[in-house]
């Protein structure tokens, strides 16, 4: 069964550094998302992306965050200047269509640790 793949599985970075988290969504999916889960907290929505632009973003997704689909397969999340509170599990997801209930398929996540 096709799956969403994320790399790296674990990223350690120093405060103030830039990180790029990478995702390869399922190939025929058109909608892409980033979610995160801080340890002990809920999974929370960051951003949705369709047709090469952001559809919606949460208040967490401030100017330090950006997303890009640089080619036909990758979908990236960049954090320009990481803060300690950015430490979390970041999940990429994709879905096939809009309308009806097209479930989001999640990757296994990237654990980001900011020191």
């Amino acid at each position: 069964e096709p799956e969403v793949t994320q790399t790296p599985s674990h990223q350690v970075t120093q405060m103030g550094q830039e990180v790029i988290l990478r995702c390869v969504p399922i190939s025929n999916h058109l909608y892409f998302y980033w979610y995160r889960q801080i340890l002990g907290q809920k999974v929370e929505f960051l951003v949705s992306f369709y047709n090469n632009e952001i559809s919606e973003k949460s208040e967490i997704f401030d100017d330090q965050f950006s997303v890009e689909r640089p080619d036909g397969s990758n979908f990236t999340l960049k954090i320009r200047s990481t803060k300690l509170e950015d430490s979390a599990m970041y999940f990429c997801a994709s879905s096939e269509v809009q309308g009806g209930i097209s479930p989001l398929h999640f990757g296994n996540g990237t654990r980001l640790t900011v020191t």
Partner: protein
Amino acid sequence: DQQVKQNSPSLSVQEGRISILNCDYTNSMFDYFLWYKKYPAEGPTFLISISSIKDKNEDGRFTVFLNKSAKHLSLHIVPSQPGDSAVYFCAAGGAGGTSYGKLTFGQGTILTVHP
């Protein structure tokens, strides 16, 4: 964000019995609801969904019930198997013109099925 709540942090069930996981929500504008299962070190895996216009959806051993007047949904797993042991998340979406795929998650319930 308390719009989706799973009030039971954990549930323990004997193999072969029914598992009932509960979820409450406050936003009557949610259009659809989904249940996800999550194993450690993996991303959430889609289980089953239900539209707000339905009150029941069944898929094999999994049935989701929606009670709109009570703003409550539940996931029934019959019969429960040890491999069902995981964290179960309730998620809701489609509220008030938000983009598709912006899901609000509950905090999860840890299900343990004993052999």
